[in-house]
């Protein structure tokens, strides 16, 4: 089936996650091969997903882990987990 740009945009997320069924995926790929705008939308969406997953974007505060384990230590020394 020939898809227009709107159809392709509606399927971008599932395309990136690889969850489209094979026939729809083939239709999307056929459109992407000839549509510069949709292939740019795909690339930029994918780039943003890659950026979001990069640990440098959402860094932990300095000594976050140290403070967490110090507070935990206080409790571990005095408390058992509650019985189920």
């Amino acid at each position, binding site marked *: 089936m020939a898809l227009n740009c709107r159809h392709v*945009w509606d399927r971008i997320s599932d395309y990136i*996650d*690889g969850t489209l069924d094979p026939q729809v995926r083939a239709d999307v790929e056929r459109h992407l091969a000839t549509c510069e705008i949709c292939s*740019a939308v795909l690339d930029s969406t994918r780039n943003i997903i890659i950026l979001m997953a990069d640990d440098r974007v*959402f860094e932990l505060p300095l000594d976050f882990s140290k403070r967490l384990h110090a507070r935990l230590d206080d409790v571990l020394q005095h408390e058992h987990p509650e019985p189920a």
Partner: protein
Amino acid sequence: MTGSDAVGSPAQNSPEAVLIASILAGEREKFHLLIMPYEGQLFRTAFALVKNEEEAEDVVQDAVLKAYRKLASFRGDSKFSTWLIAITLNEARGRLRRENRVMIDSLDERREENADFTPAALTDWREIPLAALERKEICAMVHQAVAELPDTYREIVTLRDVEECSVNDTAAILGISVALVKVRLHRARLLLQKKLAPQLRKATKDTSKRSFFGRLSWL
């Protein structure tokens, strides 16, 4: 990233299950080891909701202590990480509720219907500016764009694209259907693309210009 892995039940003899059993048997200090791999995930989950570093840190500490106290009630029918993230999410939501900062889901739904999900059509920004991540302003742009998303979208995109949880785990953590996760994730990604692609294109173009002139002045 397939997004299709099932919410796995950890095997009873997995290293994590063994660790949990020994903590419950009295080796309490091993709880440090149990949570260590998930600290970053928990912070980012909390931060996505409360949008403030200090508060997110408090949320994580409270959630981790709750997880320790309730450890015996973890049945192993979901992943430990899923359980831990769900506790953190509830802790953050509880805090927002107490402070009346909670955004009502139905309000989000209305915004969903009215939002424009047309992506930004830029044909000249395709590179991944990973090197540019060293620059705080790039990270700030991403933070800002995520912070401006409606709460329901921000939760989804944080779990799925920042934490890289599977679609099924995301659905389990949020207690919603896989289909709804997919719809919201798709919309969130398009909103981010629309907002960020023009900004990142401009920022990365500035970077290449700067480094070009930088080289010239060095010569």
